[in-house]
């Protein structure tokens, strides 16, 4: 017998905070009632396969509570996904029903296919994994695998108010949703994923726990408004976390617990690092003291043995004979620490020399006057690719002297093929829909 999300929430105090909107608090009882009404009104047959397309965070949360345990498959697709990809994924998942953004209108549910319906079983959640190159893959979870690392301590949880920055269609976003709901912390959500709206909501609700990618954290720090938040819990994940961002956050929020999480849609939450240093301890490799079995392959790929291995062919192809999954993350052991270098596929190839963008970004961030940077591949007819960088600088800094400082710094710390050929100055950096650095070569 399995428990549904609705059942798990039914065990929690009805008057506990569930969702916090800028001007309204939705208690647990109301959230359950709304989800229950939605399940009744939708009249979806048991065992159908649904696609939840582009729902607002608030509507998506109600929908997953309403349909977990009832439907056979729940495909979560973010609003930022283009129509072609959305349709492709719906088709490849054999969805029988499509639910669009207008969840409260009956015509928002479209019947797509007449497939035989499955017997009762835990709902299979399909989440789109977005690699740094942006190619979506579908990774399968159940509520149990999604909740594996969620802490359900309501006493401790009630001290926190979580803000939702991530898209809840993504693994990291759903982790925040489940963590906040199941530990009765309030979850501050907004009707849209608009950055300004999110920040305004966080300030109005005095959010004190936030999870974001390093790129998003840099953007938040540059934005400055989060200085008003009484942050006690700062979580980083989804991208390589460098020492600079850890130090910057610790400096800005001295009382906050800063942790970085190694998690992915495929592995789930692998492990978290609490010591304030980038990377993770080298003595975790091939050791029983590690939070989960870890190995580093000869080519620098990090292998992990997840407690629950998600399904799907894409995953099985990456599992070795010992049951270790190739994370496709490149790592380097330096002394007593293992550092992440970036995605194997995100590396830039300069005439056969692989360049890890994150490594170059770390170097450039050391230069005074640099707020943030994105390193990417630029196509080149001589060497295949060359390295380019977009820099966000402090307002008072002159671009030309800064460009020279960056080049000088890079030349003294990097190989010559790692030094950015082009450095341009921008006011903000592009991120993928999942909040990671856009790394598509140009």
């Amino acid at each position, binding site marked *: 017998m399995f428990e549904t999300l609705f059942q798990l929430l039914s065990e929690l105090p009805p008057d506990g905070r569930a969702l916090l909107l800028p001007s309204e608090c939705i208690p647990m009882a109301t959230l359950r009632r709304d989800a229950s009404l939605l399940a009744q009104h939708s009249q979806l047959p048991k065992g159908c396969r649904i696609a939840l397309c582009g729902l607002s965070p608030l509507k998506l949360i109600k929908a997953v509570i309403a349909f977990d345990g009832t439907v056979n498959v729940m495909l979560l697709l973010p609003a930022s996904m283009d129509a072609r990809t959305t349709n492709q994924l719906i088709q490849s998942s054999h969805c029988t029903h499509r639910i669009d953004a207008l969840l409260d209108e009956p015509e928002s549910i479209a019947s797509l296919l007449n497939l035989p319906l499955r017997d009762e079983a835990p709902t299979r959640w399909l989440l789109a994994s977005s690699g740094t190159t942006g190619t979506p893959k579908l990774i399968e979870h159940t509520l149990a695998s999604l909740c594996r690392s969620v802490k359900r301590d309501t006493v401790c949880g009630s001290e926190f108010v979580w803000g939702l920055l991530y898209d809840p269609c993504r693994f990291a976003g759903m982790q925040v949703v489940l963590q906040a709901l199941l530990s009765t912390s309030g979850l501050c959500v907004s009707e849209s994923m608009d950055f300004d709206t999110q920040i305004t909501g966080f300030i109005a609700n005095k959010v004190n726990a936030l999870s974001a990618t390093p790129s998003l954290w840099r953007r938040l720090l540059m934005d400055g408004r989060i200085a008003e938040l009484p942050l006690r819990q700062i979580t980083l994940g989804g991208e390589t976390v460098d020492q600079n961002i850890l130090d910057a956050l610790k400096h800005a929020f001295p009382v906050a617990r800063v942790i970085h999480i190694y998690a992915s849609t495929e592995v789930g939450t692998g492990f978290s690092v609490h010591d304030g240093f980038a990377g993770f301890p080298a003595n975790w490799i091939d050791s029983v003291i590690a939070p989960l079995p870890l190995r580093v392959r000869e080519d620098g790929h990090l292998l992990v043995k997840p407690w629950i291995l998600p399904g799907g062919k894409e995953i099985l192809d990456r599992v070795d004979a010992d049951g270790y999954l190739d994370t496709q993350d490149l790592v380097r052991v330096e002394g007593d620490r293992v550092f992440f270098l970036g995605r194997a596929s995100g590396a830039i190839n*300069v005439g056969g020399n692989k360049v890890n963008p994150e490594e170059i970004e770390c170097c450039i961030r050391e230069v005074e006057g640099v707020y943030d940077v994105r390193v990417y591949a630029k196509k080149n007819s001589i060497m295949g690719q060359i390295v380019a960088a977009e820099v966000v600088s402090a307002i008072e800094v002159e671009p030309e002297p800064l460009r020279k400082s960056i080049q000088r710094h890079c030349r003294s710390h990097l190989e010559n093929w790692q030094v950015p050929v082009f450095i341009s100055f921008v006011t903000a950096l592009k991120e993928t829909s999942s909040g990671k650095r856009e790394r598509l070569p140009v």
Partner: protein
Amino acid sequence: MICPMRETIIAIMSSIADDSDLHLKSELHDQDVLLECGLDSLGFAILVAHLEEEFGYDPFSLMDQPYYPRTFGEFVAIYQKYAP
């Protein structure tokens, strides 16, 4: 007669050499072998990238049949040939 395109190419080569601690030949002639002018292959990759910014095109990506010039004169001629 001074060819502005040729002069621009030399100026950019010189700046790349300075930045990369390379020594460009003090005077460049058409018959000079490219890879003996002082820039290495990465230097030429950088040169082509900068020239694309400057002129707005990369002749090597426009060629139906890839052709890599051997001399400095050939290099300049390719840019002249593919100028829009």
